[in-house]
């Protein structure tokens, strides 16, 4: 019993120390909640803003293949984290750095579009990678 409690204490302590170091030093550390809102606001784009935008847009559909095949925004490229390599190769063939890239997924709550937009930014540098507020339903409803 004593050994069990000691082991649990050790694992929890080691976890706490390693987590602190991750937050401090890891290049891919998650963004703390205090900063996340302002970053998200910069990454998000509303349907109204998109409609008013006059430049060329490259749409990225971060949903599953079945959803994409059922319907999607015209000209979209399928790129999700399940099949990243194939989708990314196709994306790079169409993309140029000045283009506005908008990623969408299924709904307001889905995180796939944020994840894909961040991963694109990570892989390609500071292009214009945004995610659509409200996702695909917001686009079809307006």
């Amino acid at each position, binding site marked *: 019993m004593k050994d*069990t409690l*000691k*082991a649990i204490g050790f694992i929890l302590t080691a*976890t706490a120390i390693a*987590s602190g170091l*991750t937050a401090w030093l890891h290049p891919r550390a*998650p963004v703390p909640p205090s900063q996340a809102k302002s970053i998200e606001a910069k990454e998000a784009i509303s349907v109204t803003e998109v409609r008013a935008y006059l430049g060329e847009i490259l749409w990225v559909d971060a949903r599953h293949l079945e959803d994409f095949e059922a319907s999607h925004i015209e000209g979209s490229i399928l790129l999700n984290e399940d099949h990243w390599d194939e989708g990314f190769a196709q994306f790079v063939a169409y993309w140029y750095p000045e283009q506005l890239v908008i990623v969408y997924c299924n709904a307001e709550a889905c995180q796939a579009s944020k994840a894909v937009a961040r991963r694109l930014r990570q892989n390609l540098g500071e292009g214009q990678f945004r995610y659509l507020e409200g996702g695909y339903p917001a686009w079809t409803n307006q």
Partner: protein
Amino acid sequence: MDKSIIIRGGIRLFLSASFLLSGIIKVLDPARFHLDVESFQLLSPLAAYLTALALPWFEIFTALGLWIPKAARGSALLASTITSVFILALLMTQHLDLDCGCFGDWLIFPNLATHIAFNCALLASGIYLTCRPAHKRS
């Protein structure tokens, strides 16, 4: 060799390899795992942030602890507890179409049933090793 030693070794290997692989994949990209945790919509932003930081290391240390004789029971108990919590989270969010981010792109479960079945196997392994952490010589 005693059959029970082989069985126990196999179970320990399955549990520790699953936890270790899962932890290492997450620790390589905690930001991505953070998004996966958020997508469950069960935790506050702060709790999701702390979970994204802590869970990968928790899995790694638990996996390693399973191989240290004095720490094996405690590690197995922690593994069982966290797996139970995760199964509960999966059941609570079954209406959402989620990728848990457990094994990155390496292993994506085709549906919820296989995902829960896999976690039940982990839970059963954890319980077994909690009850019988080491071979007792007669």
